[in-house]
């Protein structure tokens, strides 16, 4: 009964949900169309379990009746030997007692519930007739009404009590049949009792005694335990505690202790990650403020806080300050580790860190003062500022290359193909885009498409893939699925990703052949994306239970899923029709956040949670990592899904030639959702910053009493070293 109650509740909940959906559909999208097939189907599916229940009850009724008929076909006396064979322990005792005493017992049970039965039958029929009335009335409505979602929902809601009534009636009918059968059984029991009194068979009694002994046999429950006392000779069980904690969340595995890295490289990596975390909070705080400005444009009228100036400040800080520093920081761990050697130069790392930070600070000051390179996305820092980053990159490249050259392993691990190549490519990209002697007219746009796309694809994606190729196998503790897929993905990524920049300017006055190449290349991106996803996916295969026991693997899993989804979304966005629909709308903004946040940022978080506890020896509080993960994950969905939906509606409006301002009004609620999602993401970053602090902060350590006691003894000279 509990089950059915739960079931009914869930059906009602489903119905309510579908009502909400359809009410919205009816007003927003469907309008007055008669396309209600989907709704009918959905509601039918909701009622289906009830109908199945009814059918099963009917079958049960039938089966009972059939069995009863079969049972009656035999004469009563033929049943008795079978009864005797199936007596249980207690019944045997009673039978033997009966035989030894030879007393006569009277057994009289009569039940009289004929009246009750009649009443129930009456209710059953009345229910059926009432239900027929109910079912017929609404169905008799004019057929046009049946296409109205409101009518359909009402019909189904009314069907629920009717069907429940039918079910109740069927249960009662079943019971009546059972009672009827029971009466015949009672009669048979009377005859069987008479038979038992009269039967005299010593063989039978002996047989029954034996049977009774068999039934009485019981195990002692001590068969497997010995008599010796348990002792833990090898010391495998330590620190046994009777304290039992109630866990509301899955208990995650602690980081495996590794030989501690040398303090100087540890310090460098922690500083990279720390600076990155600082820029993450600053950059997304600005982003959050920008998101709010969409719904409250008169928040301030201060020049250097205006939307146009802050927008590039936000994008560039998260690009160069957060993600680039974070990636390079993790690179300083991964590159020497997979080369099985030490990093070539710590000093180069420090210079790179200072230069990159300097670039972000100077670039931000420039932008806030209205010094913008020319408005090209991610190319807003002027070249003297960007030159600092170029120097940092060249130093990093030299450092990593020499480290790889000094490797003690035979092969170069995949991670290092990706990471080192990505730095080489980025230097080429930056030089091409920033050499201040060319790019007149649309040449600037040709370079811009290449720059912003390669900035994403060659710098962030390639580097991040390198990190994933290290962290996923390392955290799962299995080798990567296939080197050959890695090779395929690597070369196709270079070939296709390089040539697709112009897909940001489809239909713009750029050479058509470039646009065609870009669209074809975008389709080609399917190859590296699918290859890499299969590679990661197959590494995860069969290891999913490890995901729920680890606090780093969920981050990597999300990154892989987003890598697949967002990259293919990018392919779809490059087609001509989707360019009409989505280009210039916030769909691009949503896509950029899905990619940059879902892939890059989640990978960086996973990587930092994986290595920082190793470097510092301190773990973050597990539930705070969980809070960070879920806030970021849900926040991103709140950010991106409504924005994509609204942007699609906006694109449709533009294609219909509606007045522009109408499309601004349309977007308001979606911008509001974006601000809400953005707030969740920002809170997640605050939690992350706190976790980072807890992982790295120097706290007063607990005194280990035992260790201290030995130290005291040593100090007193009572114990030699």
């Amino acid at each position, binding site marked *: 009964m509990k089950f059915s109650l739960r079931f009914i509740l869930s059906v009602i909940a489903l119905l309510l949900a579908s009502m909400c959906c359809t009410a919205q559909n009816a007003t927003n999208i469907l309008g007055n169309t008669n396309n209600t097939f989907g709704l009918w189907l959905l509601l039918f599916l909701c009622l289906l379990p009830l109908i199945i229940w009814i059918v099963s009850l009917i079958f049960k009724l039938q089966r009972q009746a059939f069995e009863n008929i079969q049972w009656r076909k035999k004469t009563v006396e033929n049943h008795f030997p079978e009864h005797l064979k199936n007596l249980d322990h207690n019944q045997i005792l009673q039978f033997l007692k009966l035989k030894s005493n030879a007393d006569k017992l009277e057994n009289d049970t009569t039940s009289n519930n004929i009246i009750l039965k009649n009443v129930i039958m009456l209710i059953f029929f009345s229910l059926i007739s009432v239900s027929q009335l109910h079912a017929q009335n609404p169905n008799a409505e004019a057929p046009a009404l049946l296409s109205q979602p409101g009518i359909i929902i009402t019909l189904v809601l009314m069907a629920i009590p009717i069907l429940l009534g039918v079910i109740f009636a069927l249960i009662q009918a079943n019971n009546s049949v059972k009672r009827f059968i029971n009466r015949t059984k009672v009669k048979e029991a009377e005859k069987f009792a008479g038979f038992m009194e009269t039967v005299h068979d010593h063989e039978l009694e002996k047989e029954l005694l034996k049977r009774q002994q068999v039934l009485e046999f019981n195990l002692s429950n001590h068969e497997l335990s010995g008599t010796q006392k348990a002792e833990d000779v090898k010391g495998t069980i330590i620190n046994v505690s009777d304290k039992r904690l109630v866990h509301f969340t899955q208990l995650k595995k602690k980081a495996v202790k590794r030989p501690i890295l040398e303090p100087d490289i540890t310090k460098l990596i922690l500083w990279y990650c720390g600076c990155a975390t600082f820029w993450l909070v600053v950059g997304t705080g600005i982003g959050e403020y920008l998101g709010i*400005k969409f719904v409250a*444009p008169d928040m301030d*009228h*201060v*020049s250097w806080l*205006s*939307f*146009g*100036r802050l927008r*590039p400040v936000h994008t560039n800080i998260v690009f160069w300050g957060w993600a680039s520093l974070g990636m390079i920081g993790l690179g300083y761990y991964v590159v020497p580790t997979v080369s099985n050697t030490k990093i070539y130069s710590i000093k180069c790392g420090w210079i790179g860190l200072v230069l990159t930070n300097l670039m972000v600070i100077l670039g931000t000051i420039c932008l806030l003062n*209205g010094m913008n*390179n*020319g*408005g090209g*996305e991610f190319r807003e820092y*002027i070249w*003297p500022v960007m030159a600092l980053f170029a120097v940092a990159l060249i130093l990093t490249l030299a450092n990593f*290359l020499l480290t*790889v*050259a000094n490797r003690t392993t035979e*092969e*170069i691990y995949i991670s290092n193909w990706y990471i*080192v*190549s990505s730095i*080489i*490519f980025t230097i*080429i990209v930056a030089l091409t885009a920033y050499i*201040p002697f*060319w*790019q007149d*007219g*649309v*040449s*600037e*746009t040709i*370079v811009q498409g*290449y720059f912003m796309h390669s900035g994403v694809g060659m710098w962030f994606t390639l580097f991040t893939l390198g990190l994933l190729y290290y962290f996923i196998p390392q955290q799962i503790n299995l080798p990567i699925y296939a080197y050959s897929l890695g090779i395929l993905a690597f070369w196709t990524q*270079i*070939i296709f990703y*390089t*040539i697709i920049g112009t897909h940001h*300017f489809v*239909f*713009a*006055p750029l*050479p058509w052949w*470039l646009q065609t*190449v870009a669209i074809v290349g975008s389709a080609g991106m399917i190859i590296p994306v699918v290859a890499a996803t299969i590679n990661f996916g197959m590494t995860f295969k069969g290891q999913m239970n490890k995901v729920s026991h680890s606090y780093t693997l969920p981050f990597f899993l999300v990154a892989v899923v987003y890598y697949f989804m967002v990259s293919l979304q990018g392919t779809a966005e490059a087609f001509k029709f989707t360019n*009409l629909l989505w280009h*210039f*709308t*916030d769909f*691009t*903004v949503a896509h950029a956040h899905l990619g940059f946040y879902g892939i890059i940022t989640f990978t960086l978080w996973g990587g930092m949670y994986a290595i920082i506890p190793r470097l510092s020896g301190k773990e973050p509080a597990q539930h705070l990592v969980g809070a960070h993960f879920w806030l970021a994950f849900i926040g991103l969905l709140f950010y991106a899904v409504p924005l994509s939906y609204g942007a699609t509606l906006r694109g449709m409006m*533009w*294609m219909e*030639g509606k*007045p522009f*301002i109408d499309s*601004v009004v349309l977007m308001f609620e979606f911008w509001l959702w974006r601000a809400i999602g953005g707030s969740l993401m920002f809170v997640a970053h605050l939690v992350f910053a706190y976790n980072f602090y807890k992982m790295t902060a120097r706290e007063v350590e607990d005194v280990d009493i035992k260790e201290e006691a030995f130290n005291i003894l040593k100090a007193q000279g009572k114990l030699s070293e």
Partner: protein
Amino acid sequence: MNVFNDHRKLYPIAGLLFAFLTYIVVIMPAFQNQANNAPLPGTAKLSGDAHAGKLIYIGEGCVGCHSQQVRNVEMDKMFGSRPGMAADYANIGRTSFWQNTATLMGTERTGPDLTDVGNRQPGIDWNLMHLYNPRSVVAQSIMPSYEWLFEIKENPSNADVVVNVPQEFLNGKKGKVVAKKEALQLLAYLQSLKQTPLPDGTRPFEFLYKRPIVELKEANEGGPQINGKALYAANCQACHQESGEGLKGAFPPLKGSNVVNGDNLELYVDIIMNGYDARPEFGAMAAVGKNMKFDATQVAALINHERSSWGNTGKKVTTDEVKKIMELVESKVTASKK
């Protein structure tokens, strides 16, 4: 594989492949474009003020929300009379030694495209009010206010450009809003944004992805009312407002207007096509109809919309009537020019 185990082979090969592809898809086409492009004859050079205004436009990051490219697709037709061409951008070089070339094509349209805004929205008063606070003229706008391009003066001199900002947008400040030099420079730049007409006899590229013809027909025959409303929203509403009441001291009301409801159709059509500056208490109206190349169907739809909205009760006009009057007005204008 040997290549993958030797850093002296792997990285140079990957780097060269990338550099080669970069040359093919970026460096070569970009240089080709630079060498083989020239601005259209008749392209106006940016004036000193307009150039300074462009620097402000770049610095304020306007490109983050406003594109400057009319794609060769039908849906972009509302932003220009012809699709953009590489030649339109050919006279744009590096902004300065420090700053890159700024074609400002953009990738986002949170606000409308501005390629041709000098034709579409030339009104000085409207633009300055809009820059001071966009919501003073377009209630639903979410564009930032550029208050710092203006100053408040108790007693503006004759040389000052005073902007009639409604009191509610002054946030309690006393005095008159006066445009600073920067505001006027930005305005000059915005007014300079006009598509250069093609040399005589050259036909522009066609807009692709035309809307289904059925729909266009409907708009013309069945529902001039709807069409007129959309036209009004796109071209007139920014000044005369959705309510038709205009803005006091800036733009006259159309609700209950004698011109709209009266019988002087010639004056009415003349104002729509060629603008109006006869009333000192209001700003000058630009030649909206001429700039946007309205035809008789559109003008008739607009007139009918304005005559039947906000309680107006003017006589309905037909396309033919308007066509005749448009020809008359046109001949008078050319006559007066001679």
